[in-house]
């Protein structure tokens, strides 16, 4: 009898072996260690943690190595690991006002309590390839200052004191915390769910959408009220203990956009908010996120919804790069059964047209008849 050739199985095994080989590259070059990625490609690690929705620098570094530097693939690896982890509950909301700040800039005021802190930023570097890095250069010690004990209130809070910006809705500690990864997205979504979606969303997608709002597709007149980067305390209230247990510190980036005001004949105008938050140092991501968050509030703020960035279903259904890459890339899987069906139809339709032409019948008439 005849049996199927197990070419598929052998091909897969061989492809995996070849992949491992290609990942390693030239064996004469030292192998990169995850710790090196964690320490020296930290922004890649931060992006993978954010889009992978899991705060674990070591795991993200291994994922980046395994994915050969493909950050979307690395986020996918982290997500697939994350899905197997048990859930113990939700932490208390983090308090970014109490952040140990490493960087803090505001575009809205020249000086603010606590001051502007540039921190580690590319912002004023000249983008000239630094050939010293090729050989590895000694790095000068960073300048140090005594820790400033002064509080660093958030700029939006300062505006809030003067009632110039809309108030954030009061928090409800008893309200359930929605989890996009544990329940299907139901539209329209609340802002909490939207922000969760955007926080996991693809940086490039949010960047492009945020940019589009600046170019007039859903303009929101944004000012970067404040961007801050630093460590915040995580606390978890365990039911059986009854009080908040500190879990440690995580580094986050927060962006608060201050957008053009909203008011009415009776309601004094106030600035409106757009919010972005990400694990690690993801400044571009949080700025795009804050622009898109504000754009998505169009309906709530009585603005006409007409631009892509304002369209909740469009944004939320297409923001996830793990979903998007899967569905775009699945086109390379075999589709020959469906293609055969299409081939059959196109050949049949072409044959019919050829037959009609041979019989001298004008096509339009025949098609019209067919439709009637």
């Amino acid at each position, binding site marked *: *009898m*005849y*049996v*199927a*050739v*197990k*070419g*598929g*199985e052998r*091909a*897969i095994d061989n492809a995996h072996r070849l992949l491992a080989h290609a990942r390693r590259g030239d064996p004469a070059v030292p192998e990169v260690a995850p710790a090196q990625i964690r320490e020296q490609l930290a922004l890649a690690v931060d992006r993978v943690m954010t889009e992978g929705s899991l705060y674990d620098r070591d795991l993200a570094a291994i994922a980046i190595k395994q994915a050969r530097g493909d950050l979307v693939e690395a986020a*996918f690896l982290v*997500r*697939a690991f*994350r*899905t*197997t982890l*048990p859930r113990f509950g939700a932490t208390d909301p983090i308090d970014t006002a109490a952040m140990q700040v490493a960087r803090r800039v505001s575009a809205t005021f020249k000086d603010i309590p606590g001051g502007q802190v540039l921190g580690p930023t590319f912002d004023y570097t000249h983008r000239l390839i630094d050939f010293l890095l090729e050989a590895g250069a000694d790095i000068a010690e960073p300048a140090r200052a005594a820790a400033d004990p002064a509080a660093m209130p958030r700029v939006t809070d300062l505006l809030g004191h003067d009632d110039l910006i809309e108030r954030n809705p009061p928090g409800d500690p008893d309200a359930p915390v929605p989890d996009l*990864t*544990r*329940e*299907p*997205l*139901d*539209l*329209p979504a609340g802002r909490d769910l939207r922000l969760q979606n955007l926080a996991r969303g693809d940086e490039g997608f949010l960047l492009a959408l945020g940019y589009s709002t600046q170019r007039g597709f859903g303009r929101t007149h944004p000012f970067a009220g404040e961007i801050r980067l630093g460590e915040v305390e995580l606390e978890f209230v365990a039911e059986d203990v009854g009080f908040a247990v500190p879990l440690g510190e995580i580094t986050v980036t927060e962006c608060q956009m201050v957008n053009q005001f909203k008011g009415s004949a009776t309601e004094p105008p106030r600035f409106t908010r757009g919010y972005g938050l990400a694990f690690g140092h993801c400044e571009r991501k949080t700025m795009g996120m804050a622009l898109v968050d504000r754009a998505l509030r169009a309906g709530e703020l009585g603005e006409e919804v007409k631009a892509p960035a304002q369209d909740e*279903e469009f944004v939320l*259904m297409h923001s996830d790069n*793990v*979903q998007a*890459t*899967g*569905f*775009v*890339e*699945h086109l390379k*899987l*075999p*589709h*020959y*059964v*469906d293609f*055969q*069906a*299409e*081939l*059959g*139809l196109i050949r*049949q*339709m072409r044959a*019919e047209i050829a037959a009609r032409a041979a019989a001298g019948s004008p096509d339009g008439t*025949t*098609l*019209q008849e*067919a*439709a009637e």
Partner: protein
Amino acid sequence: MSALATSGTVAASGYNFAYLDEQTKRMIRRAILKAIAIPGYQVPFASREMPMPYGWGTGGVQVTAAILGASDRLKVIDQGADDTTNAVSIRKFFEKTSGVATTTHTAEATIIQTRHRIPEKNLTADQVLVYQVPIPEPLRFLEPRETETRVMHALEDYGLMHVKLYEDIATHGHIATTYAYPVKVEDRYVMDPSPTPKFDNPKMNDCAALQLFGAGREKRIYALPPHTKVVSLDFDDHPFEPTKFDHACALCGATHTYLDEVITDDAGGRMFVCSDTDHCEERRAEGHRGALLGEAPAAIAGAAE
């Protein structure tokens, strides 16, 4: 082969039986039960992120993982064949995580997970067919918004679909849909049969097996209980016609099966062979011979054993 520990973990992999945790399985199982109770209706479910990409069958894999038991015998096909790379990959996934027996023989399988085909052999009451579904919403290409299409289903408002099919006829003289051809289930829900060729649509009607559909990225599960009425949409003057082939299978001579076209040279040479490899092999074992059986390359015909 079976490596089941009583706790349900598979010793070889360290993962839970069939990979998913028990809470996830319960959630999927509840969705499956409601899907069976409302044939053709898409039940939202909290699809998990699986260790394979969306688009590679995460929905079908989750459904299979939720129903699979230690005594099942699993068959996985893609494009009708057990040997396509993704079918091999999914079969290995379940071998590793569940240790259940697998088979390529349609008749021996208790669960068949499929992408793009329904096996040629009539399915039985002892079988479950699990479809991998990319876009579960049959109205999606007419109306991209979920918020709109779910209302259309609620109102049983399928006018848009009929307009689309009718426009096809006006433009092409045919309903220009050859796969994922929409069906109506029990005179109520319009349903996407997944991207199976319309050749397979008649097999869905009054099928003896339970049919389950899983869409992972789109987070929907739907079902056809056995012996459910499934009608392909059409018009009185343009009745539904399954695809017919002018050829017989070059390997087994079958004239009633769905065929793959294989290009054999760059001078117009081609041969047509059964897409259902198990069915074709079985026919050849019974002595049926197609015109090119002796000369087809081993990659197409398989190897003589």
